[in-house]
């Protein structure tokens, strides 16, 4: 130790040295606390954007938010929490909110408050409403972060130039589009909501609530602002947004403007649907191919949410859409999956939109205007009430003493009487029995249940009755003149019906597979005569044939059953009407989405479909254009009609069902939207626009949790702001009524 050191030792006491040394050592230990993630899969925000590839990957995340539920497929690293990850998926939530609330879908399950959707009694604590809302803001928040990090200033700061910079600028426009899309969902579903943009840094603050009208303006402005910065229609990479996607959202915004801001924007709706329609998309020849595992090949889909069995796995999205719709006796293999979940079906309200149009029938059931003398057949089949409206009658078409009619006795041993008037004043039975009526005689009895032809001569009091079952015979029918095609009796309508393929030949009706009782139409007036002439069938095709007997004129209809190829129902083992929503087999199943290619091969994975979800299709643009014109938008009525007829022609495979300009009404548009776009996530918005979502104007089975359907409070036209957000943000006011 040299002199100098010694002097230092003197100058500073040993205490100071020790304290200094201690401070140094502790400081080094304390420095250990400054850790950074060791895992290369986790990067800090400070460094992530140094690599331009990160922008592309974050952009992929922004799109993937709609498709999957987190960073691990099908589940494991969720984006949002507080709800089962599979359920939390954006598309699954969106689909449920838009479809389960309407006539198009019900779900059998018991998950949480899922039944609130179809019951239409959701509250601010409903976890699915909450999840939808959280998904929207997940998209908004992540887009904000991306937009913040891709500002021109940041790009310059990070030294990006040339093509790299240009590409990132386009990503930024796509991010702004995606944010606008989700804000559009917020606008549509929640109305007035909290508002955050890229100017709001991540942190603890309370966002202000924006009015529905201001949000409308914001979304509109954003979409118009980014439009030029997006790729031209149909030029971007598959599944990425382009100009046409933005036009489509703008068109939706304008078409619904009366709902959103109380003033119409139909001119704008016409403009933007027009841009989409002329952008080069074309209808697929086969409607069904839009919903199959290889639907990425469809030239009709404007914006898909893309799925892949290997690379894009989720329990929501297409996995849910296809699995949940398969149950009952449906074969999973027919849908390219490993097994159904037995959840979603439809109500009869949708099915009935596909039923044959009675206005196109041949030979409408029109009875003649003649008034015939009647006698009455009260009994156990109707409650022994001769004065009741439903009391069957026998008519004397020639106004003589001969009365005839057909009466259905549903139960064996059914007793009845013949009354001369709709009272008990003059009633007849048969005491012996000897086929001769006795006044005030013993009850008559139908030994077997059945549909009886009854003849009474009121002069002689002789009577006959004979059970009948009816069929169609003739060279127009598949069995020719040799055998009958049986018809089915419907006690509700008191009609016999058959769905049958008929050729352009002749046919007759006959009872009990024999000729003694047969009906034809000699004068082709729609009223049948015993032994009448053969009925000529006008053209080949499927027909619904009905035969209406009862008393008086016997009539029939031949309604060409045009096959709408969009009616993809699975009926086998399913009832049409629903008495218990929890039973999958009640309500017809929907066979629209499949994990099969158009060649019939299963997708790449039986559990996770390849099928992309068509968020926007050309067909939607056609119907929107037509509706906007009908509602007064400045467009071509002719084009509007043409567009609708394009869809109808594709649906039927021919132009025979095309409509005329007078047929093109708003009601038709709404029904056509159901037929064309059911289960594609549009229905709730459509019903609200048509004023039919909550009102008594239109009800469907189990609307408002009532079997026949009932109106509900108008507050349900928007969802409530979830209580979780009301609880954490004091700036928010709840939507009216909640």
């Amino acid at each position, binding site marked *: 130790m040299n002199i100098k050191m010694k002097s230092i030792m003197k100058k500073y006491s040993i205490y100071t040295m020790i304290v200094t040394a*201690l401070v140094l*050592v*502790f400081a080094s*230990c304390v420095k*250990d*606390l400054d*850790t950074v*993630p*060791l*895992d290369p*899969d*986790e990067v800090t*925000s400070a460094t992530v954007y140094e690599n331009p590839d*990160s922008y*592309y*990957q974050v952009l*992929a*995340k922004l799109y993937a938010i709609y498709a*999957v539920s987190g*960073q*691990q*497929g099908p589940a*494991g*690293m969720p*984006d*949002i*929490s*507080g*709800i089962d990850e599979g359920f939390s998926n954006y598309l699954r939530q969106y689909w449920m909110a838009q479809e389960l609330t309407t006539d198009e879908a019900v779900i059998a399950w018991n*998950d949480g408050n899922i039944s*609130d959707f179809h019951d239409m009694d959701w*509250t601010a*604590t409903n*976890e699915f409403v909450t999840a939808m809302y959280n998904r929207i803001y997940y998209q908004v928040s992540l887009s904000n972060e991306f937009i913040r990090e891709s500002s021109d200033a940041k790009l310059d700061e990070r030294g990006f130039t040339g093509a790299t910079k240009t590409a990132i600028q386009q990503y930024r426009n796509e991010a702004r589009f995606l944010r606008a899309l989700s804000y559009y969902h917020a606008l549509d579903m929640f109305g007035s909501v*909290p508002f*955050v943009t890229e100017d*709001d840094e*991540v*942190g*603890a603050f309370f966002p202000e609530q924006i009015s529905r009208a201001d949000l409308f303006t914001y979304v509109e402005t954003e979409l118009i602002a980014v439009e030029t910065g997006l790729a031209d229609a149909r030029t971007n990479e*598959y*599944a990425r947004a382009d100009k046409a996607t933005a036009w489509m959202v703008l068109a939706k915004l304008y078409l619904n403007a009366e709902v959103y801001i109380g003033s119409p924007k139909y001119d704008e709706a016409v403009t933007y649907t027009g841009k989409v329609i002329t952008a080069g998309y074309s209808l697929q020849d086969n409607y069904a191919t839009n919903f199959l595992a290889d639907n990425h090949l469809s030239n009709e889909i404007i914006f898909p949410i893309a799925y892949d069995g*290997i*690379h894009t*796995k*989720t329990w929501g999205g297409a996995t849910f859409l296809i699995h949940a719709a398969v149950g*009952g*006796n449906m074969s*999973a293999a027919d849908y390219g999956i490993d*097994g159904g*979940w*037995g959840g979603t079906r439809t109500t009869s309200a949708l099915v009935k939109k596909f039923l044959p149009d009675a206005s196109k029938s041949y030979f409408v059931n029109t009875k003649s205007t003649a008034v015939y003398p009647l006698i009455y057949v009260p009994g156990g089949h109707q409650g022994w009430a001769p004065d009741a409206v439903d009391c069957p009658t026998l008519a004397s078409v020639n106004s003589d003493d001969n009365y005839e009619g057909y009466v259905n006795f549903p139960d064996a041993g059914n007793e009845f009487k013949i009354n001369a008037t709709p009272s008990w004043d003059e009633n007849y039975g048969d005491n012996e029995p000897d086929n001769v009526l006795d006044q005030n005689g013993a009850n008559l009895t139908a030994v077997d249940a059945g549909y009886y032809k009854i003849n009474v001569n009121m002069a002689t009091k002789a009577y006959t009755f004979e059970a009948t079952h009816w069929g169609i015979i003739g060279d127009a029918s598949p069995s020719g003149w040799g055998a009958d095609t049986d018809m089915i009796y419907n006690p509700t309508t008191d009609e016999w019906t058959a769905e049958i393929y008929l050729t352009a030949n002749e046919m007759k009706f006959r009872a009990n597979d024999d000729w003694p009782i047969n009906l034809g139409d000699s004068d082709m007036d729609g009223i049948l005569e015993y032994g009448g002439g053969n009925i000529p069938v006008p053209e080949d095709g499927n027909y619904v044939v009905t035969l209406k007997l009862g008393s008086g004129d016997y009539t029939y209809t031949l309604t060409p059953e045009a096959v709408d190829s969009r009616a993809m129902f699975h009926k086998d083992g399913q009832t049409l009407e629903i008495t218990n929503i*929890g039973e999958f087999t009640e309500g017809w199943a929907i066979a629209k989405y499949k994990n099969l290619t158009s060649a019939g091969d299963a997708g790449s994975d039986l*559990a996770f479909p390849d099928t992309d979800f068509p968020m926007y299709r050309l067909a939607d643009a056609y119907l929107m254009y037509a509706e906007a014109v009908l509602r007064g938008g400045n467009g071509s009525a002719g084009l509007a009609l043409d567009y609708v007829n394009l869809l109808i022609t594709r649906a039927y495979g021919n132009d025979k069902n095309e409509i005329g300009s007078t047929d093109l009404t708003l009601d038709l548009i709404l029904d056509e939207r159901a037929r064309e776009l059911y289960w594609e996530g549009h229905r709730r918005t459509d019903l609200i626009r048509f004023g039919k979502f909550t009102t008594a104007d239109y009800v469907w089975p189990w609307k408002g949790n009532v079997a026949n359907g009932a109106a509900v409070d108008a507050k349900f036209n928007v969802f409530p702001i979830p*209580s*979780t*957000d*009301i*609880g*954490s943000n004091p700036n928010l006011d709840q939507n009216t009524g909640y």
Partner: protein
Amino acid sequence: MGQIYSKLKVAILLLIFAGITTVTFAQLVNVTGTVVDATDGSPLPGVTVLQKGTTNGTTTNMDGNYSLSVDRDQTLVFSFVGYSNQEILVSSTQINVQMVEKAELLSEFVVIGYGIQKKSDATGSVTAIGDEDFNKGMITSPQALLSGKVSGVQISGDGTPGGGSTIRIRGGSSLSASNDPLIVVDGIPLDNDGVSGSANSLNAVNPNDIESMTVLKDASATAIFGSRASNGVIIITTKKGKVGDALKVSYSGKGSFYTIPNQVDVLSGTKFRALVSGQYADNSNATDLLGGSYTNWQNEVLKPAYGQDHYLVASGAIKNLPFRVSVGYTDQDGILTTSSFERKTGAIALNPTFFDKHLKINVNAKVMREANRFASNGAISSAMLFDPTQSVLSGDQIYNGYTTWLQTDGSGLPITIATSNPLAMLNLREDISEADRKIGNIQLDYKFHFLPELRFNINAAGDYSSSNGTIFVPATAASDLTNEGVNNVYDQEKKNELLDAYLNYNTDIDAIDANIDFMAGYSWQHFWRSGTSLNRNQSLLEYSDYETESYLVSFFGRLKYSQSDKYLATFTLRQDGSSRFSPDNRWGLFPSAALAWKLGEEGFIEDLGIFSDLKLRLGYGITGQQNISGDYPYLARYTYGQDNAAYQFGDSFINTLRPEGYDKNLKWEETTTYNIGLDYGLFEDRIVGSVEYYLRETADLINYISVPAGTNLTNRVLTNIGSLENKGFEFSILGRPIVSDDLYWEVGANVAFNKNKITKLTATDDPNYIGEHTGGISGGVGNTIQIHTVGQSASSFFVYEQVYDDAGKPIEGLYVDRNEDGVITGDDRYHNESPAPKALFGFNSSLTYKNWDFSFAGRASIGNYVYNNVDSENGTLGNIYNSVGYLSNVVENALYTRFQSKQYFSDYYIQDASFLRMDHMTLGYQLNDVINNTADIHLSVTVQNAFVLTNYEGLDPEVFGGIDYNIYPRPRTILFGVKIDF
């Protein structure tokens, strides 16, 4: 370990620091002498020599010498920590004393954080349980030793072989963060995360090696552990050899037989057949599915099992080197078929002393290797649900021969949503793991030669574990046909390192009849872990790995002051720095203060002649909680997505990159505890015990909570919002009604009441905010049955109020419209009970008569409610037939309620699960001096889980968390034990 060495520098500097501190006292000389250790004659420095009844005293120097001016005919009292006091009449000027080490160290002393303390001087709520008092039986986990022994400590073990237990001390102080207590083994605070592939994080400690377990309950005792102490601390001390002991070898062996106490009452094959035939008389699709067998599936999956445990220990001293070496072997099969546990442990403890006992060195090393086969608990519910008319095997080769529900389309494919064959689930799934763990530490305790009142203690420790496991299911198994089987491999490596050092200065200040004990120290801990996982199924390889670490740096100090041995005060302060929080929030200060008044030493109490001990304690302290998932919750991070969550752009699939939600201001939660306690001893300590009342308020709860929409990068982030409180009362009593040479009887009981209430949950205090849903149930997807709500107990059940008919039967789907709005919606749910018991009782007794001994211990829990998810999920008639083509059995309850569809949220299923469980009863016999007088043998027979008294209708009322589903049944164990001491 490398980092530890660098930290040694700190210790050396502390030594230097210590050298400059001196304290001296004026002395007079009259009586002189030397005080030595009675066993080895080594001088004892620092022994207190006191003239009895005065404050006149001194301490021995480094050579054990003392001198004291004292009058003749007075008595000198010699006292020293760890030795028995000696009183000697002054009859000469030379008094040499041999001090005798206390045999029953534990009865007088308790281990506290960074030191030991005379139990009578404890100011906090500290309960020590020695090995004599541990629970008996086939106990593989250290936690189980304590069950029912300490008031306010709830220990709930599971039935799995080698499985762990959940410990709650005075209820939970956290909502989202961990509620597990800090466990300190031989001075090493463990991390709470456990080892993957190991069912219990404490398996590395063989219960046979444990000398004592000390439970620190209130903050005045735990605050010295700072940010990890909010849920109490359990200090485990292992056994050591002693200087002067002859070599002792001891063997103990146990053989155990596990039986199944009871089964879930599902329908028998006969009843099920009748039910299906009746319900679906006109649906042949359903009745055609019925099989021709009568299978009790629970009998098939739950089988009696056997276990064995061997333990060999040698201890003694080689000259001045006391040692203890032990090896253990445990092999246990689970009653759920295929589950098993095998463990080998080794432990070595060396505790030599040097320099006339001035330097004590403690070396502990523990090694463990365990092998597990885990059985899928899902097989338990499948065994309840699988159609009892089916046979186990189908008779076909397909699906490995196991009966499987097949799709009705003739494809031969299994129905994916149908119940899996429980035996296929067990036998075809090979879920095995191996874990190795080594825990070691070196502790140096140096008493300064020139100042024996000053002690320096340094402890360097390492805890290393590595584990790996595989899960294999063949591609032919019906359950994993779509995946083409399961073939997963995972491994994990963990390194936790510790260095701590402290100085302790302890002296009497005779002038004022006081004692001061001051301690200051420093601690550094590093937690590191990494792991990989590889899923190989289909043509796809899914590989993932992680590596993460955290550090904890702390400074702490404690001042204990004792006045006249009657008035005691303790103050502690700890400053913790954690790498899990941002530099701005990294440091937390945790103070505590405690006062105690030894009333028993006061004349007016002594005069009563009843109390042998009476002490009033008051404590206050703040502790922290930082045990949260993730090591970087405050950092803004981005995470790469996996290959199967990629998104298609064009023809490529792009791996996504996601920003994570975070709270940059995250910090630990703080719990403030107020404690008042009274320790009492009556009739010469024939009856001892304590009474305590406490209030714990946790603020800044670390909670996954909804943030205002749009403000963060996910909907819920880990942040500090909310507060809750626990209030409680505890009482314990231990009596020794009979103490004689032949007969000794001890009986103990304790009771604890705790009330938990959430007092704040959101930033806005919105009174309409219903709360955060929690408690996911089986059935449906994402259904929850519990909720955290302000003003209610945490995890209260949140349900509809069931309406009953006149006969008291629940009416399906009919609930009380509590908000009277005419419809039943989610808003009609209400807060029912909570799973936390309102009162916990523990009781135990041991009786020794000559060579016989008999002991038992049990627990009771009152007011704990359980959601009977077994009945709610499997108790409906509408689900026995699924039109996809399979049948499901139901519980008997379905025949009572006749519910058609599931009523998950009915309060009918919230059931009182109060219970009394006899944990063990043991009868033993001691044979002394056998085998040519070389050995003592103790034989015992034990029944564990002997019986349970409860009104609960489910399988077992003890359901941690309160949702009863898929519970691994706790076996009833009959065990034969032998212990041979050579």
